[in-house]
């Protein structure tokens, strides 16, 4: 199929960017979206032009590297997948596809479609862990049974890949879904209880410091999350935060 790609090009963090149109031909439905960009880049390299830079690594939907706002939606029109899992069969011959970087002040553009998501790392560093030494001298793994539903919910929250689609989709560029997923993972397990108060306070403080917007419960994050992380996690974090505030 033939397509027209409108892609954000930006030399580096400091320079101004602009949308550039690229016609492309010979795209097959079995190609992934990133393989389609590979084809474009091969053509650009052949012409001696700079290829379009974009983040990608595992190309199987788990590393969270790939991003891209495609036709106004993070990871494109299909749900519950990342851009690398989006296949060109979701588009039609003659389509124009608008490709932009994830936009948020907390995700500054590095180059072209690459953004800096280290703000997410800093939120995790503020408290997204259990303070246990890695000596291996802990209690036996089976000494504390965990209710299966809690374990499953905890796992579901923990499947977050940190891609930032929640922020990109949110009209307020809020990172509540991301932050709450980590808070929830630990809040649902006995191991996470000891530090629950400090964890939620510190992580929320860091989230606010990074300049993300506030949650207005539009639910866009949940719909666009490639892992289907539930809004319930945000409610749980709000609850944890309120209870922590009264203790703090």
């Amino acid at each position, binding site marked *: 199929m033939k397509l027209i790609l409108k892609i954000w090009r930006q030399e580096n963090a400091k320079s101004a960017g602009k949308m550039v149109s690229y016609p492309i031909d010979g795209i097959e439905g079995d190609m992934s979206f990133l393989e389609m960009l590979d084809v474009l880049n091969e053509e650009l390299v052949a012409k001696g032009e700079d290829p379009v830079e974009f983040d990608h690594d595992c190309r199987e939907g788990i590393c969270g590297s790939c991003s891209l706002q495609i036709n106004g939606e993070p990871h494109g029109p299909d749900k519950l997948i990342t851009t690398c899992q989006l296949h060109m069969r979701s588009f039609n011959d003659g389509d124009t596809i608008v490709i932009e970087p994830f936009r948020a002040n907390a995700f500054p553009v590095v180059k072209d479609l690459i953004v800096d998501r280290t703000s997410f790392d800093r939120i995790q560093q503020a408290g997204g862990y259990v303070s246990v030494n890695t000596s291996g001298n802990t209690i036996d793994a089976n000494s504390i049974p965990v209710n299966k539903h809690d374990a499953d919910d905890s796992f579901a929250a923990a499947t977050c890949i940190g891609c930032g689609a929640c922020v990109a989709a949110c009209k*307020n560029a809020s990172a509540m879904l991301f932050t709450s997923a980590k808070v929830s993972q630990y809040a649902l397990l006995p191991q996470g209880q000891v530090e629950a108060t400090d964890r939620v306070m510190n992580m929320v403080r860091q989230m606010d410091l990074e300049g993300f917007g506030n949650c207005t419960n539009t639910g866009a994050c949940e719909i666009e999350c490639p892992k289907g992380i539930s809004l319930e996690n945000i409610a749980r974090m709000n609850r944890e935060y309120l209870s922590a505030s009264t203790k703090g």
Partner: protein
Amino acid sequence: MGGFLKSSIAKKVAMALSGLFLVLFLLQHFTINLTSVISEDLFNELSHFMGTNFLVQAILQPVLIFGVIFHFVMGFVLEAKNRGARNIKYVKYNGSANSSWMSRNMIYSGLVVLAFLALHFYDFWVPEIVHKYVESHPEDASRYYGELVAKFQDPIRVAAYCLSFVFLSLHLLHGFSSSFQSMGWNNKYAKGVRGITVAYAIIIPLGFIFIALFHYINNL
């Protein structure tokens, strides 16, 4: 309190609580207004009570005014912060793919409601205060019904009134259930709550519209 309200979540919770308070007030306001359709005397009686009771006037009324002002000031603060979180906008943003119009446009539905409130204050509250406290007229327990009916004679005012309540409905459709989420209440009952909030968001504004049209048509 100031320290607490610095965090994003605390602001949201405050927004939710003030919103819920206004939802309760709205229900009470609606109940009294509805009596105007049923019985002139009952309406006058209730209005007289509200207008002269010390607790209502000296405590509930300031709390209400504070609640209204707090809700919209906080709304503006949050909106400004949220807009500021994405300085470079998307060329293409397909919001309808993942969220409702109501949820994305609370500021606009809120602004319409705010404009209406200004009109409402100008229509009822200001004359009321002037009547009672500035000009210090003696209380006439039967005046309320007449004042109400008089206001609904102007078709333009009635139309503005109805339109505002449509926006209030849109505001409530997202805001009411959203406040539960903000306060951390999202569990197996949430779906049921959502149903109740949607019903409220449609029935109450429709009821207000009905009352306005009732008096307008009744006095044609």
